[in-house]
């Protein structure tokens, strides 16, 4: 069956460093993959979408890569700030109109 895996442990980094989060998927080949941010007590907010024919996509301090051979997406936040602390969710497209999310990785950026 289709499976989505994200680092279950929280990621703690120092302000100014680059945070790298991982999303792995198995048993399917998504045409695209999305990343969302969720703050405590709030709904997720869309950040980036990367398609299977795109190796990398950037938006301000965010960078996403998509390796269809490894079945993996990496999400990078450069020059991280305490305000980047949140849970980050990946959602590889599973077909049809159904969007399934990974469990998310909590990121803590210390000042």
């Amino acid at each position, binding site marked *: 069956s289709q499976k989505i895996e994200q680092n279950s442990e929280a990621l703690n980094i120092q302000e100014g460093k680059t945070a790298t989060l991982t999303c792995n998927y198995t048993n399917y080949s998504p045409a695209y993959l999305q990343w969302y941010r969720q703050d405590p007590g709030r*709904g997720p907010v*869309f950040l980036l979408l990367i398609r299977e024919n795109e190796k990398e996509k950037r938006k301000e301090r965010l960078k996403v890569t998509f390796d269809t051979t490894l079945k993996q997406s990496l999400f990078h936040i450069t020059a991280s700030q305490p305000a980047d602390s949140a849970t980050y969710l990946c959602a590889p497209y599973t077909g049809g*109109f159904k969007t399934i999310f*990974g469990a998310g990785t909590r990121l803590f950026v210390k000042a």
Partner: protein
Amino acid sequence: GAGVSQSPSNKVTEKGKDVELRCDPISGHTALYWYRQSLGQGLEFLIYFQGNSAPDKSGLPSDRFSAERTGGSVSTLTIQRTQQEDSAVYLCASSADGTGELFFGEGSRLTVL
């Protein structure tokens, strides 16, 4: 409004009672989704609508859960005979055509005593 609106934002009910949660999607969005998020957990897919039809109800946890959408707009998630394990945040999202970006509401927090 400009975003996805959900009501109530908080609901406390007694075990065995029925509850209705409402979602008002972004105007013109054809796809509407319901998710459940238990404390500290990820998003659990419940159901989605394309227009007024629900092609995939596979995520509904039991037959106590049902959802409908009317006029291609507002959706209601109904939980009958609530149980304590139903306590969670119920999130609604909409998207323009069912692919790509989802816009989420702030959720309805349900507590079953």
